[in-house]
């Protein structure tokens, strides 16, 4: 079973992600966290058993950058990988995120067709079985 953890504080974006992913990857299991520290908890609970963490940057309590730092400190397997999904297309945010080995993609919201296609590539590279 392919599993994705969506880390997003905004209820609208969470809704959009949930709808789009369910439509394009109906067989993928979705989990949710509303900020970095909650995501860490979920990851630990599930023993890091995810393929992809879809990560927003601007979140309260623990933002995306802080999450990446924490994630790097507690985990060094190849999966799950992190794909950024943010409304920021600031170069500084991109560079900061891409500096982490776990980050395999940087998607700018909203989660439209192009972004779905990129996410599909990442999932396939991880050996996920997806229908055409």
């Amino acid at each position, binding site marked *: 079973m392919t599993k994705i953890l969506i880390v997003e504080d905004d209820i*609208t974006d969470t809704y959009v992600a949930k709808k789009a992913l369910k439509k394009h990857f109906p067989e993928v299991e979705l989990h949710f966290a509303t900020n970095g520290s909650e995501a860490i908890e979920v990851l630990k609970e599930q023993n890091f058993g995810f393929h992809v963490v879809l990560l927003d940057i601007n979140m309260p309590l623990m933002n995306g950058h802080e999450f990446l730092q924490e994630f790097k400190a507690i985990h060094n397997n190849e999966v799950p990988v992190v794909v950024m999904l943010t*409304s920021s297309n600031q170069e500084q945010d991109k560079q900061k995120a891409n500096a982490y080995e776990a980050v395999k993609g940087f998607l700018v*919201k909203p989660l439209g067709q192009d972004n779905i296609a990129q996410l599909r590539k990442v999932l396939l590279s991880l050996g996920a079985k997806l229908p055409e």
Partner: protein
Amino acid sequence: MKNIKRFLTARYLIGLTLIAATLLATHFMQSLNLEDQKIYSTIINMSGTQRMLSQRIPKLIFEVEDKASDPEKKEKALMDLQSSITVMRSNHEVLLNYVKNMDVMASQTILPLYFGRNRVDKKTRGFLSRAESFVRAQTGSEAYLNKETYLNYLVYFSDGLLVGLTKVVNAFEDHAVQAKQAYLSTEKLLLLLSFFILFLEVIFIFRPMVNQVVEGMEGFDKKNKELLEFTYRISHDLKSPISSSIGVIGIMKDEMDSDWDKDEITHCTGLIESNMIRLKKLIEDILNVTKVSNTEVKKELTSLDDIKANCETLMSAQDVKGGDIDIMWNLGEQKFFAEKFYIAQSLENLLSNAIKYSDLSKDKSWIKVSSKIDKNICTISVEDNGLGISEKHQKDIFKMFNRFHPKVSEGSGLGLYLVKKNIEAVGGQVQYSPAKDGSNFEISFPIK
């Protein structure tokens, strides 16, 4: 800016005036010294001439006697003699006059030479009157005594006179040297004083000036960074409700042909609506923040009741509703001068936060607004039994774009930042302290 300019100009003026004063003092000292040295050299010269004349006059008398056979040479020698006598007499008067007007120290060493044991005055006068009597005898206006009588007198006077006049010359020279030394040490003192003044200027004028400028620059730097951060966050926060809404619209378009139920559509439009409301609130907050930066605030006659009324108007304009929350007002009645609108706006922000972040798990939510006035400071505190703010976030609560309650918040993250800006703009302070059941915010501001 005006204040900085005034501060710098005042310090510049003081600094430059002090430097100019020391320069003037040095110049004054120098010209005084130059004048003194000129007088000293004249006096020393004159006393040397007296010494020389005391030897020359007897010689000329010999010559007049010697050249008795040659009327032409005798006449010339006699004229020389006469003019020498005139010069010596006038010099004597000038020197005496000078010595009498000298400062006490100098006159104590030189006056005795003239009037004390050496009796230079008496000897000079005796010497000159004998010489004049000789001249008169030669021109026939007085009976000629005889050569020996004149010469005896002259030799008698001139011997003592030479010693006395030599002493006078030396005394004048000593006096000049002493005066020069006094001048040099005064000048040294003046130089030290100048250095000391420069040192004081460095400490009290130039260093504060540099500090003021550096402080100003640091202020600009800080403001600039704040502005950059502001722009970054603003552009993100303005963009995200729009991208979110576009996302929802995309979903709706995808589902257009499927048999969506009404609830789903309502949910989607609700999401778009809340995003638009968030956007509107954010834009209003941004406008308010920039307004605080650009408006000069004025104090007006008001009271706490007046501020409360103003705050309630703002709350209804913002559509903030307390609902079941019990808001308890306990305000004083005093009237005072203060920047009413900014205080009311801050209070409105604190109240709408207290309402927004009330703790729904509690039986009864309440907010207590109370006030106290101590001297010229009015403090309003807003205490609630809401969610509170966890300890590790307390240091960041007044920074812009911070939100601490992910599940509740739809705030712009500018509310408390705006409160701080407002209160600081009126010269006051805002403080947060954790209360027993929730939060406690205190705003204090100066009143007149």
